[in-house]
C-alpha cells in the first residue's frame, strides 16, 4: 500500500522573467518501508519536489496543481495548522548542507530539545532524555549533547541533524543530498546509518542526490528527474542493469568506478536546459545521443515498460516504437 502518493504535482516559480516549472506534472509513489531515490542534475527540480511534499515552498514559488496523498489525506488540501501536525511528526526532512543547518550559538542539546518541546508534549527533562536516546540511535556519544556545532566534524553534524529529524518518530524521512561535502569514509557511514534506520524503524526514506552511485547503495526504487519531470522510474536493479532512458544511461556512465575493469567515462555534453525557456518537444533532445525527429516536436508521454518500470521517451512508445 502506498504511504505517499504524488499525482500531477506542479510547483512553479513566478519570477520577473517568466515562469519556472520546477516540478511539472510529477507522479510518484513511496511505499511503506521503502527507500526511494530521486536523481538528477542541479536545477532539475529535485529539492523543489521535496519542499513541495512538506509544503515549504516560499513565494515566488507556488504549488499550482496536483495531489499529495499521505495515507489517503491530500496534504495540499490541509489548513496550515493541520499541515504543521504532519510536518516533523509524520514527515521530517534533513536539509542540504549539514555544515550550515545547525545554529552555531546553541549546543546540540538545546537544538534537539527545542525541536522536541516544540512538537511534542514533553517536559524539558524528558526531552533531554529523549535527545540522548536519539543521538545514541544515530551512533553518537551523549557527550555530543554539550558540544557546539563548530566542535563537531561534518559527519557528526549530519548525524545530529538526522537525530533531530527523527525526534518525533516520523514515518517518512526526506534527506536532501545527505552526503555532499563529506569525504568517502564519512559518506559510507552516513549511508549505512540511513539503511539501518530504514530496517530498524521501518522508516520510509526519500533520498535526493545527483550522485547515482550513492543511490545505488541504499535505494530500493529510483526516479530520474530532468527539467521538472520524472523521465524514468524503476527498482534499483532495473535502473542500473537495463536503463531505458538515454539520460539515465548517460548519468550512470558518468560515474567512475573503483571496482572492476576500468571503463572509459562517457561525457554528456551540454548543460541542463534553461527552465524558463524549455526546448520544444522532449526537453532532453538537444543533449540526447539517440534523438529522433519527433523528439524536437512532440513531448513524450510516460509509458509503462514493465510492472514497475516507467519511462518518458519516444524510443519506447507512441509514434516511434522500437525494440527495447
Amino acid at each position, binding site marked *: 500500500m502506498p504511504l505517499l502518493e504524488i499525482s500531477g504535482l506542479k510547483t512553479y516559480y513566478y519570477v520577473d522573467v517568466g515562469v519556472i516549472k520546477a516540478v511539472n506534472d510529477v507522479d510518484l509513489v513511496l511505499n511503506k518501508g521503502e527507500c526511494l531515490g530521486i536523481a538528477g542534475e542541479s536545477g532539475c527540480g529535485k529539492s523543489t519536489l521535496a519542499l513541495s511534499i512538506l509544503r515549504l515552498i516560499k513565494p515566488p514559488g507556488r504549488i499550482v496543481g496536483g495531489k499529495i496523498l499521505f495515507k489517503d489525506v491530500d496534504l495540499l488540501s490541509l489548513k496550515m495548522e493541520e499541515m504543521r501536525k504532519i510536518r516533523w511528526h509524520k514527515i521530517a526532512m534533513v536539509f542540504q548542507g549539514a555544515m550550515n543547518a545547525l545554529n552555531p550559538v546553541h549546543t546540540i542539546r538545546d537544538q534537539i530539545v527545542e525541536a522536541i518541546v516544540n512538537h511534542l508534549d514533553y517536559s524539558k527533562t524528558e526531552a533531554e532524555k529523549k535527545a540522548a536516546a536519539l543521538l545514541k540511535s544515530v551512533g553518537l556519544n551523549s557527550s555530543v549533547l554539550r558540544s557546539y556545532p563548530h566542535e563537531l566534524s561534518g559527519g557528526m553534524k549530519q548525524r545530529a541533524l538526522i537525530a533531530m529529524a527523527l525526534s518525533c518518530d516520523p514515518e517518512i524521512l526526506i534527506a536532501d543530498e545527505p552526503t555532499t561535502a563529506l569525504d568517502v569514509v564519512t559518506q559510507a557511514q552516513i549511508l549505512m546509518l540511513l539503511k539501518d534506520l530504514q530496517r530498524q524503524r521501518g522508516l520510509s526514506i526519500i533520498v535526493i542526490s545527483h550522485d547515482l552511485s550513492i543511490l545505488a547503495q541504499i535505494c530500493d526504487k529510483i526516479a530520474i528527474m530532468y527539467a521538472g519531470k520524472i523521465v524514468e522510474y524503476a527498482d534499483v536493479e532495473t535502473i542500473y542493469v537495463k536503463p531505458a532512458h538515454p539520460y539515465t544511461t548517460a548519468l550512470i556512465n558518468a560515474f567512475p568506478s573503483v*571496482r572492476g575493469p576500468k571503463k572509459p*567515462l562517457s561525457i554528456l555534453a551540454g548543460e541542463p536546459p534553461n527552465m524558463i525557456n524549455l526546448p520544444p518537444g522532449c526537453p532532453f533532445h538537444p543533449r540526447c545521443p539517440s534523438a529522433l525527429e519527433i523528439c524536437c516536436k512532440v513531448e513524450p508521454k510516460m509509458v509503462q515498460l514493465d510492472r514497475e518500470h516507467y519511462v518518458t521517451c519516444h524510443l519506447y512508445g507512441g509514434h516511434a516504437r522500437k525494440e527495447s
Partner: protein
Amino acid sequence: MLEVVHLSKYFIMRRGLLQYLRREEPKCIRAVDDVSFKIDKGEIVGLVGESGSGKTTLARLILRLLEPTSGKIFFEGQDILSLSNDEMKEIRKKMQIVFQDPYGALNPRMTIQKILEEPLEVHSLYSPKERIDIIKKMLKSVGLNPPELFLDKYPHELSGGQRQRVVISRALILNPSFMVMDEPVSLLDATVRTQILDLILRLKEEFNLTYLFITHDLALARYICNRILVMYRGRIVEMGETEQLISEPLHPYTKMLISAVPVPNPSIKISLPPRASEFVDVFTYQGCRFCARCPEATQLCQREEPPLISLEGGRSVACWKYK
C-alpha cells in the same frame, strides 16, 4: 620536476591561561609530517585521503603559500625555500593552483575579463591590447565559446561548471608547467564533473602540464592519475602506480578508502571494516597513526611507527605487515 624531501609542517595550538600557568607543553598538530616524494614531468600524481589528512596543507607548502617547519622543496632543480620574494614571484608563474570551490575562488565584483587580466597585470606581461587576445584564446581553450559572450559577465551569471572553467583558465593564463588541482570537481554535478575532468586531461596534453591532483575519491583518482599517494594524518602511508594500488591495495587504510567508495552498481555494496569509525586522539603520535582504526593492528603497531618501506614495482607502504 618537483621533489619534496622530508617536508613537515607542525601547527602549534595556542595555550589557554591555565595551561600557560601550569607550564604545559603546547599541543601540536602534525599536518604534514616527514613527507618525501617526487613528481616527474608530464605525470599526474593523485594525493588521496580523508578530510583532515593534510592534503591541502601539503599543496600549500609546495606552492610556498605556507612556510614549512622543516624539509626541502625542489622545483625544476631549484630549492624554492631559499628564494627571496622576488625570485619566488618568477617561480609562481610556473606553478599554479585550482581551488575546490568555484563559487568562492572568483571575486564576485570582477568581470571575467578583469579576473583573467589580473594575473597578467601582477606580472606585468603584455600590453593591454595583447592581453585581451590572450584572454579570449584562453577562454576558448577551456571551452567557453564564444569568448566575447563571457568577457563582461560576472561570476554569479555563470553555472558551477563554467566558473570552474574560468578558475582553470586563470591558472593557465601565465603558462605554468605545474598545477595543483585541489579537489577541482568535488562540488560539481556528475555530468559537469566528467566534462571538467575531460578538460583537465585535454589541457594537460595541450599545454604540456604536470599535475598534483588532490581528491578524497579513489574512483576519481583512478581515472585521472598515473600514480597515487595515499595520505593519513600527515603521513604518506602508501604510494604506487594507480591500477596496481587500486587492484591490490596494501595498507589497511587504502583498503578502507576503496571499500567506502560507492559503486554505481546495486549488486556491489559498500562496506567498512570494523573499528573504521573509532575515535582518534589527534594529538597523540605514538605508534602507527592508523592503529586505532585499523582492523589488523598488533601490539607493535601501537608501540612504534612504521617507516615507509619500498617494495618492488615502485611501490611503498608504511605498515608493519610488510616489513
